């Protein structure tokens, strides 16, 4: 109790107890009206009837979800079969986001670990170098990647001048390009939480393991990794979730054949081919997937916090 109310960290103090509702009101108002209400309205829209040329008719309909999951033939009266088109797009999105996450982890973990084990003064510079790209416009980064990966782009001309390949490697508009793009977009999100975890890691534990005859790799696998797991999980989520709904990387690097959820949704709201309820339904399905991931994560986090005391 001595100092209990004054200690720093994340202690909750009550200096502004009386004023707190007024202080929160602008945030509640703005976010309630501009984010929460629109998302709820979107949920409503997903159950409405589409109007051609965009927009909706205020009539309840399950057509959007029906269209997403079932194929009822050209005239809509055949026996329902599973419609694979959209599920395939979602599946591809999950696959692409997953691949980008694995790629980020494979590169990001050693990077984060390396940075966190530098002398303290150097660390700042390394972290700085990792964060700068995050501050650069995502669109510009994606465009740059597109420029770099083109058939006649700098990467291919480099490979050809050095004689490593005879003809350009076709990279743009492939799944690989999208994965690289996503990896490139969100890599700092993987590095930073792992870095933070490794920085907190008590290296005496590694010394103890070495003292007890563990080699380095066993130490990494059985001592370091479990200790920094929360950072790794956080990093994976921070890469996977935005990758799942990303629009720019698949659009600019993947081309028409490598459609992901983001493009599917975007298409429903552009031009005359649009189907707003269907776009709203697809958005709801994406949102639900993301929320499920976040809830599982929050649960696991709460549990491990409890175990840690």
């Amino acid at each position: 109790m001595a100092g209990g109310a004054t200690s720093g960290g994340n202690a909750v103090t009550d200096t502004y107890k009386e004023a707190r509702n007024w202080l929160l009101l602008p945030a509640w108002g703005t976010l309630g009206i501009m984010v929460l209400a629109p998302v709820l309205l979107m949920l409503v829209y997903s159950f409405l009837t589409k109007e051609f040329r965009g927009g909706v008719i205020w009539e309840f309909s399950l057509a959007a979800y029906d269209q997403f999951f079932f194929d009822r033939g050209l005239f809509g009266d055949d026996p329902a079969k599973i419609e694979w088109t959209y599920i395939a797009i979602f599946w591809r999105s999950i696959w692409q986001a997953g691949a980008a996450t694995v790629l980020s982890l494979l590169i990001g973990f050693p990077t984060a670990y390396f940075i966190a084990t530098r002398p303290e003064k150097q660390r700042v510079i390394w972290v700085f170098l990792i964060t700068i790209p995050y501050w650069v416009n995502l669109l510009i980064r994606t465009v740059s990647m597109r420029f770099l990966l083109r058939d006649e782009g700098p990467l291919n001309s480099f490979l050809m001048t050095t004689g490593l390949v005879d003809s350009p490697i076709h990279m743009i508009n492939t799944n690989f390009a999208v994965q690289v793009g996503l990896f490139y977009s969100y890599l700092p999100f993987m590095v930073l939480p792992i870095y933070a975890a490794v920085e907190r890691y008590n290296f005496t534990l590694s010394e103890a393991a070495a003292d007890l005859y563990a080699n380095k790799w066993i130490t990494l696998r059985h001592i370091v990794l479990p200790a920094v797991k929360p950072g790794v999980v956080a990093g994976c989520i921070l890469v996977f979730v935005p990758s799942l709904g990303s629009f720019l990387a698949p659009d600019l690097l993947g081309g028409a054949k490598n459609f992901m959820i983001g493009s599917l949704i975007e298409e429903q709201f552009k031009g005359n081919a649009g189907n707003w309820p269907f776009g709203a339904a697809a958005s709801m399905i994406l949102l639900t997937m993301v929320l499920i991931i976040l809830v599982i994560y929050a649960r696991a986090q709460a549990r491990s916090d409890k175990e840690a005391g």
Partner: protein
Amino acid sequence: MSLEQPNAIEVRDAVKRYGDFTALKTISLSIKDNEFFTLLGPSGCGKTTLLRMIAGFEDVSEGAIFLYGEEIEGLPPHKRPVNTVFQNYALFPHKTVLDNVAFGLQMRGNSKSDSRKRAGEMLELVQLSQFAGRKPAQLSGGQQQRVALARALAPQPKVLLLDEPLSALDLKLRKAMQLELKHLQRETGITFIFVTHDQEEALTMSDRIAVMSSGELQQLGDARDIYERPRNMFVADFIGETNLLDVSVDRIESGQAICHLGGGHALTCPSVEEVAAGSKVHLSVRPERLFLTATQDDGNALKATVRENIFVGTDITTLVDLADGPEIIIRTSNSERGNQRIFDPGTPVYVNMEHGAARLLVD
């Protein structure tokens, strides 16, 4: 109120609850004007809570607190003429040392230049004038401590509250600051209420000490009182080092309790009110008030064997085993070496108590 000078602080039946947890259980105490008063106890005993209630950072769940006769409950901290030296000093990191000290004066409505002039004088008092333009982070711990003191004293509060202000300093500096604080208190004539868990610090500095534990006042008195006449087991154990022995009271004769302890050792010591014949009580005796002899010169001496002598600088600590009884610790001043009071391990000896050294405790 009566005609006499009212107490600086009067705490009347104060209770503090946080939800289901009771941090303070009905405390009443008076702190006199111009007194160096210490709240002493282990962490979690409620001493800081009581201090923060006086400062106005915690409200009082029940009871009342009076400052020079006026009830202060309900007044926000900025309307109470008391100032605090915080445990971590809480020096404003973005203000210079001078502006830190001037802050309270300015908030009381003094002009900026007046406040700074007075703040400069305060810095002189604590010998930090040359650091006036620095930021707190550029000072050492001891210097920060003195700035915090100057800042709290500058507005001339009626009562100064000090929340473990020396705990972050190293031993030597702490000793020096103890004396300096004591002098400052004498010089300014301001009532000091000092919170600490360090019993030695409390004994050194205080006019009076309130020993607290688990939200209750255990004993109130001056240093000698508390050290030599602890009222209960907690105080005896918490203040200084002591031998606590389980004893049975056989009978009481003219104020003397005749007791025995395990192994059949018998001894006589002054009785206290609550003790009755046939009861099992505790006997507390300070190690420095015991001495060893080779022969039984006194009926009260207990037969024992020396186990170990430990050299601790100024003293020698001797552990002895009472025959069929508990272990006893004896402290002998190093200057006594010539007086044949130190015996080799294994030597049979007798443990003697100075007259009036033993004290019976009921709980």
